[in-house]
Structure formats: structure tokens, C-alpha cells
């Protein structure tokens, strides 16, 4: 059974149909990169996968569970599906440690105090920021904030992580440190779905490339194949425009 099964998903905002029949499966351990022009529905698709958005048709299964079914406990599901946003969205009034341990403590994954701090230390080590454990988000650079946001997700020990253009808001010189963390995660076998404009990452790290166009999966396949032989003019245009 695939970890994520998306079939014929439709999603409209008012009159505008943003997703027009999306089909996509993601196996455990796969790194799926979604590319496509701005407005093609990439963010919306990610937000549908963890139930932030309702859908108007089709279905999405994560670990066999229907995300948009009434009987699904979305909270339980989200404990296992991490999402990292373009704008970091750290909690500005909490230290890095508290940002990281808030959810694990409140959802009863771990006890307050030493155990929580130990967890914060462990996930911060994964993103190379142990020394920032007592800093506030406002004291960190964008790249560091984004790494903390990733650590915050990791603290919930997710089996699936979603990344929505997580390097797009960063100064160019800070992009590398965040991509490095994501590469490490990929190497460790984390299942990831990520939207990115970093074509090198898409080419070298992803196991599957998905090109979205006009609310549909226009092409999908192995990155090397798609980059070398785009089957449609839309993808060919897109690739040449981001080069």
C-alpha cells in the first residue's frame, strides 16, 4: 500500500477550480518534487494532503486513512504528517526549545522538563542548531528559522513531511543550509513531498518529479527523464524558463 494515494481530487475556491482531477501516489521512502508555475495549485495540493483544505471531489488517503472523511481524527493524522511553510511560521513569543517541544508535550508524546529538552536537543542536532536552543525566533536568520521549523516537525517523529517552497523566502546565501538539511532527511529515508523551484534539488535528490499545470498533474516520472525529454511543450517551456 502506498503511503499517500491521491485520486481524482478536485478543489475549488468559489467559482475557480484550482485542482482539476489530481492523481498521485507516493510510496514510503519516496522523495517527490512538485514543480510548476505559480498559481498551478501546488500549495493547495499540499494543504489538502494534511487536511488544511477541504476538497470538492475525489479522495486522499494517507497511511490508508481517508483525510477528508468525517470519521478521521485530523489531529492524530497531523501528528504524523509534518508541514514546513515558506514563511517558517515559528511562534515568535517562545524560545526555540519551546517551539519544538510545545506540540510533543501537549499531545502527550513526551513529558515536560528534561525529556522534552533532550528531544529539542536531539532534533536541533539534526539541523545543526544545538547552540540556538534558548534563542527566540526573532534572533535567528531566515535560514536558521527555517531549520528550526524543520526541527519542530521532526520532534513529532512524522512519517511524511511536506515542504512548500521552504527556501523561497530566504536570501540566496542561506538556501544551501536548508537544502542540506532536507538532503540529509532524504538520505535517512524520510518520505517527502516538496514544492520547490530549486531545480538542482529536484534533479539530484528527488525520486519522482511531478509537473503541475492548470490544476492537473501534467507530467510525472523520473527527474532525469523529464528534464532530458519533456513530453509536452508546457514542461519544456517551464524547464527552459527556470534555467
Amino acid at each position, binding site marked *: 500500500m502506498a503511503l499517500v494515494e491521491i485520486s481524482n481530487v478536485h478543489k475549488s475556491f468559489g467559482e475557480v477550480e484550482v485542482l482539476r482531477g489530481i492523481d498521485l501516489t507516493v510510496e514510503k521512502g519516496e522523495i517527490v518534487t512538485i514543480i510548476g508555475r505559480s498559481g498551478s495549485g501546488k500549495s493547495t495540493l499540499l494543504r489538502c494532503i494534511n487536511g488544511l483544505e477541504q476538497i470538492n471531489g475525489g479522495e486522499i488517503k494517507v497511511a490508508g486513512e481517508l483525510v477528508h472523511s468525517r470519521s478521521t481524527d485530523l489531529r492524530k493524522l497531523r501528528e504524523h504528517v509534518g508541514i514546513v511553510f515558506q514563511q517558517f511560521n515559528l511562534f515568535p513569543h517562545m524560545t526555540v526549545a519551546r517551539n519544538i517541544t510545545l*506540540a510533543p508535550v*501537549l499531545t502527550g508524546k513526551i513529558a515536560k522538563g528534561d525529556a522534552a529538552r533532550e528531544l529539542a536537543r536531539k532534533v536541533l542536532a539534526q539541523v545543526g542548531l544545538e547552540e540556538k536552543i534558548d534563542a527566540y525566533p526573532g534572533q535567528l536568520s531566515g535560514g536558521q528559522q527555517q531549520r528550526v521549523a524543520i526541527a519542530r516537525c521532526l520532534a513529532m517523529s512524522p512519517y511524511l513531511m511536506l515542504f512548500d517552497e521552504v527556501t523561497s523566502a530566504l536570501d540566496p546565501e542561506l538556501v544551501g543550509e536548508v537544502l542540506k538539511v532536507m538532503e540529509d532527511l532524504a538520505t535517512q529515508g524520510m518520505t517527502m513531498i516538496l514544492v520547490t523551484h530549486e531545480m538542482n534539488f529536484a534533479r539530484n535528490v528527488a525520486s519522482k518529479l511531478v509537473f503541475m499545470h492548470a490544476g492537473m498533474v501534467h507530467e510525472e516520472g523520473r527527474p532525469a527523464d523529464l528534464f532530458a525529454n519533456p513530453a509536452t511543450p508546457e514542461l519544456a517551456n517551464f524547464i527552459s524558463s527556470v534555467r
Partner: protein
Amino acid sequence: MRGFTISDFLTMLAAVQWTATLVVLALAFGAPLALLLARMCTGRSRIARLVATGILQLVQGVPVLGLLMFFYFGMPVFLGIKVPALVSVGAAFTIFTAAFLGEIWRGGIQAVHVAQGEAAACLGLTRWQTFRHVIAPQAFRIALPATVGFLVQLIKNTSLASVVGFVELARAGQLASAATFQPLLSYACVAAIYFALCFPLTLWSRSLEDKLNGAR
């Protein structure tokens, strides 16, 4: 007729305790209601939003004096029992506080970016946990200057309770004025005491505002 003495002033000072009682009552009962209204206004339920917004608009559209009269004369009629002035006056200021603080806190909650709530929800927090740990602390910080500012309004507005004969600071001033025929001096004392109560709060509110603006 007698002259204005220090004991007249001391009587006024003593009456401050009733002003304070009204303020404390209004906050003790009004603040939780305000929180409830602010939550309803920003919540998911359409009906709750409509109801809460309606209440806020209605109460804010009525002068405090009107509220006071309504509760003072209305409570005995609607409840069919005589209630002490403290209760009816207290109820009026409770409603006043609920509406104005409710509006201030609604603004504070809405000023916290929706992405903060989404991020918390994405981590598996319940709606209450999200509000309690993520939204409320940030909203409170944003709304604190206006909240302290409202406190000043509340203190000054309790003087209206004198209209229905409730003896607080302003009413004590009236009584002293009538007994001594020294209205100017009496009311100058009243004004000075209100000022002494409110001015530090105003300063505090301002410094909070500066801090908030500086922090952004």
C-alpha cells in the same frame, strides 16, 4: 452651613473604595464575558459570530448612562425582585466592560496572523491548545495598551453611577458640595483624585504601546 475641611476630603477618599469596587466587579465578571465574546467573534461557528458581533454592536451603541438606567430601573421590573444598587450598577458596568474589552480583544486575536493558528493545527494541537498557547499570548501583547486604556475609561465612567444615587467618588463630591456650598473646591478634589488614579495608567498604557511599536 459649614466650611470645607480635611474630613470632607477624607470622606471622598473613602468613597474611592466604592469606585474601586465597581471597577473590580466590572472586570471580574466583564473580562471573562469579553473573552467569550472575542472568541465567538473569531470562531468557526457562523451563528456564534453573528450573535457575538450583534451583542458588541448593540452595547457599544448605547451610552453607559443608558445601560445604567436600564439595569437600575429594568432589573426590578424584569426580575420581579428589588436588587441592591450595587448589583444593578455592577451589572451595567459588567456589560459595558464585556462589550468594550470584547471588541479590543477581538482585534487583538485577529491581528495574530492566521498562519500561526495553522502552524499550531498542523502540529496536532487542539483548537483550545492553539488558542491558549499560540494565539492568546500574542493577542494579549498586542491588545494590552488598549486594555489598560480601557481601564481608564472604566474608572472615569463609574462616576455615572452617582446618577442613580450610588455613593462612589463623584457622588461623595456632590454630597460634600451640597453640605459645604463649596462646589468648586469639592469638584476640584474629585477631579484631582480621578486624575491621580488614571494618569499613571495612561502613562503605563503609553509606554506599553511604545514597547509594542518598538518590538516590531
